[in-house]
């Protein structure tokens, strides 16, 4: 039986997770976050450099906030609160309205989950952490395989993943 959509959804939890999501997704050009968030991508990364984030740390596959100055960490976490968080909550709202929602298998020791795709192709994984309360676990844009890089190309790529992942769960 599929779990009902939770009453409340909280943001990404934890400084490390928030830091990594901003640096790995919003600051890197591959996912074209400037289509979702004003002054994202290279401009946001340059602003992070200016606030004391070392480029070598930002370029790591899995950047670690403990390698950064406090000023850098605070800057990146502010970018989460001001830009990424509204973007993923907006994506959830738009995805629910458009029925771009699929159930995910339960994670061991944790609750069932959902994948939601927003209008601009932001994919958000949400998981139940209490009886009726869930949290965002990851938010990112699926990069199209081909050359297309318009918002609708990102949305198409994300919707295909939603179909494939949730098809065995019987949709939602």
């Amino acid at each position: 039986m599929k779990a009902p959509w939770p009453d409340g959804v909280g943001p990404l939890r934890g400084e490390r997770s928030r830091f990594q999501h901003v640096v790995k997704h919003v600051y890197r050009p591959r996912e074209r976050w400037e289509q979702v968030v004003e002054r994202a991508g290279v401009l946001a990364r340059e602003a992070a450099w200016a606030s004391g984030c070392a480029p070598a740390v930002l370029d790591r596959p899995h950047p670690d906030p403990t390698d950064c100055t406090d000023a850098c960490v605070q800057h990146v976490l502010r970018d989460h609160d001001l830009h990424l968080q509204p973007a993923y909550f907006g994506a959830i709202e738009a995805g629910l309205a458009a029925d771009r929602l699929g159930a995910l298998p339960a994670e061991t020791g944790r609750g069932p989950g959902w994948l939601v795709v927003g209008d601009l192709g932001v994919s958000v994984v949400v998981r139940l952490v209490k009886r009726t309360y869930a949290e965002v676990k990851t938010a990112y844009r699926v990069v199209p395989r081909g050359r297309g890089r318009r918002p609708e190309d990102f949305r198409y790529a994300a919707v295909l993943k939603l179909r494939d992942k949730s098809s065995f769960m019987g949709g939602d």
Partner: protein
Amino acid sequence: MATHPWHQAALEELGELRPDTEVQDEAWRALVLVGRLFSAPQSLVPDPTWLRALPRLQQVAGPSDPASLLDRLASALEADDDPSGPLHDVLIDIDDELVVSTMSGGASIGDELAARAQALVALWPERVLTLADFAEARLSTSRPDSLEHRLWTEVLAAPAAILAAALPGTAATAPVPARRPASAPQVAYLPDTLLRAAAASPDLSEHQLGEGVWLYVSGGELRVELADRSPGATHLLLQAIDRDGDDVLIERAFVVEHPGTTATVVLGDEAALERIAEEAGRPLGSLKIRLVVSAADDS
């Protein structure tokens, strides 16, 4: 025999696509869906229109990039975010690549991709635990001798692998896995900042591009130093890629023999990157430069 919902979904989605599409991602998706039908245990055959369209769809979809898929898989396995995010995405992308390569006769490339992907998954079984339900369902929709079957079998075996590693005595004898299997290619990109600096002046300082991969200028030569290699020969492929389209514009292959564990590859003189950009007919800033490193006998 009733059609499985996975294949029913493929048939329905094919009905929404056009065999004469000029859209790259739609052409690829059509190939994937036809490939999924072909690889079904009961060998479903799509409408003949699709079969006739396959060569043209392959042309529109463009070439594949297995090295990039493996790099994405390694990175997603090393991460600690929800496995249902980018990790599940890249496993599906590899599955797509495998069904299409089998259908189009590229089995040797698919075979290597499946083997390397399996090896990577085997290093991080705990990361794929939650994908077991998907793996089980996917296995029921593919033939046991198919490449994608091997991939999802590895995912499904994760709990057993973890259990085996935890058995008394195993920890002391099991070898510590390398960050990547020795056979997997290592991929590094030159950071944007470095390309901008190189465009402005060839006088580059030393840069670490990845684990054990360094780029620097010495004696008027641009060099890549690769640490912790197995003694023998190392293969380095340099690719200049269009930043917008992801097309590989220029490729240079280097093979260097080294008796010790450090391999030094000379890419050219200190203006080598600028010269590659000139040859590609693009400004350096519009390119991505990718280095793919592997043991020479793997390539």
